[in-house]
């Protein structure tokens, strides 16, 4: 197995593991900030899953990309499940996919390069928010969850970048306002 295949496979497996293992619903008292990151993350996970689905459907990235896109979609769905559990455990009503009408600019998935760029833009904002959450939240178990989610998203970004010659943006923590603004055009 060459390095490229190894990284692609690792991204999928690690992504799934990261999202499914560190979290189980609990009755922890969630602060407003905890819930805000969780709500944003949940919407973003649905958005990512939608992106991967559309990228798969368009076929722009070619057959070699299909396993990466499928793993990305699986990881996004597992992230959504983890965040749904967090919100439910905190006594909130989590959003569902039916609550969103995502907006995809016509150029977003027009070519292979545009598809990768769009995916990396989304992943950069989501990872930044998760890093911000991991750095600022007060409850340790929430910080662990968001750190795991950030790692999963980072692996997805690496895998997507490997499909082309893209260099993912350097990971920086974003506050919720900045991350939200970055995704506003897509979240509808």
């Amino acid at each position, binding site marked *: 197995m060459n390095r490229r295949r190894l990284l692609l496979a690792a991204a999928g497996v690690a992504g799934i593991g990261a999202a499914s293992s560190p979290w189980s619903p609990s009755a922890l008292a969630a*602060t*407003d*900030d905890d*819930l*805000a*990151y969780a*709500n*944003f993350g*949940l*919407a*973003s996970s649905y958005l990512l899953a939608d992106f991967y689905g559309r990228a798969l459907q368009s076929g722009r990235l070619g057959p070699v990309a299909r396993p990466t896109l499928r793993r990305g979609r699986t990881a996004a769905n597992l992230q959504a499940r983890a965040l749904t559990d967090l919100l439910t455990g905190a006594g*909130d*009503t989590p*959003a569902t996919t*039916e*609550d*969103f009408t995502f907006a995809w600019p016509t150029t977003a998935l027009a070519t292979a390069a545009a598809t990768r760029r769009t995916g990396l833009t989304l992943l950069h904002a989501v990872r930044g928010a998760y890093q911000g959450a991991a750095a600022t939240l007060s409850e340790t178990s929430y910080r662990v969850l968001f750190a795991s989610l950030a790692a999963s998203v980072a692996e997805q970004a690496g895998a997507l970048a490997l499909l082309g010659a893209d260099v993912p943006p350097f990971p920086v923590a974003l506050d*919720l*306002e900045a991350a*939200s603004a970055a995704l*506003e055009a897509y*979240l*509808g």
Partner: protein
Amino acid sequence: MRSRLALLLVALVVGVTAVAGAGARPTTTPPLTIYAAASLTDVFRTLDPAQNFSFAGSNALETQIRNGAPADIFASAAPLNTQRLFRAGLVDKPVTFTANRLALIVPKSNPAGIRTIYDLRSKPVKLVVAAPAVPVGGYTITVLRKMGLSSVLGKVVSRESDVRAVTGKVALGQADAGFVYVTDARAVSDQVNIVRIPAWAQPRVRYEIAVVSRSTNKTAARAWINAILSARGQTALRNAGFLPVAKPTT
């Protein structure tokens, strides 16, 4: 366009009522008494000016129906109010007929300099909201909680009885900002600026409508509701800025 829709709606209601009542009584039917959420004021009046409307906060209307007010139809901005009445046997099974979103409005002069909802946290602001029992008041609390901004409720200077009162206070410059439905914000867009609330923080705003159990004009009431659920009724709601529901459902 609006007047054509209104005429069609009136014709549909009158027609159905006339057919249902043929042979039993004269075809001239009294107007329906429709209790509706304040946010439906413009669209319902435009759709069908021939009926008797009472617009207010859905919680106040629920209380009035519970106390025996002579309504034929109840249209609520939150399922909670209709469902409570349904469980009490006071309305027939409610139907979801439209949806909405929340927005923050600021006066055109924008004295507090609010550009994003996050500015509410950092700037001194006189904020006006609806009371928590009013649907839009409850939705406001949900938005702020979802965004981690519950602390800005400490800047509330007034809690109003319905969304129109919130809109009016901001439009008149008596407050720096207020949370209203997007449809109400559109109606005063010459007087206010609209600050968008992100999709991920939006509450699930669903409107329900039901025939009041004690109505003496149930056939006409059902016909009126069917007209609202029809493609033309739904188009009129969308034109007023309301959001479609996948399929109006019970």
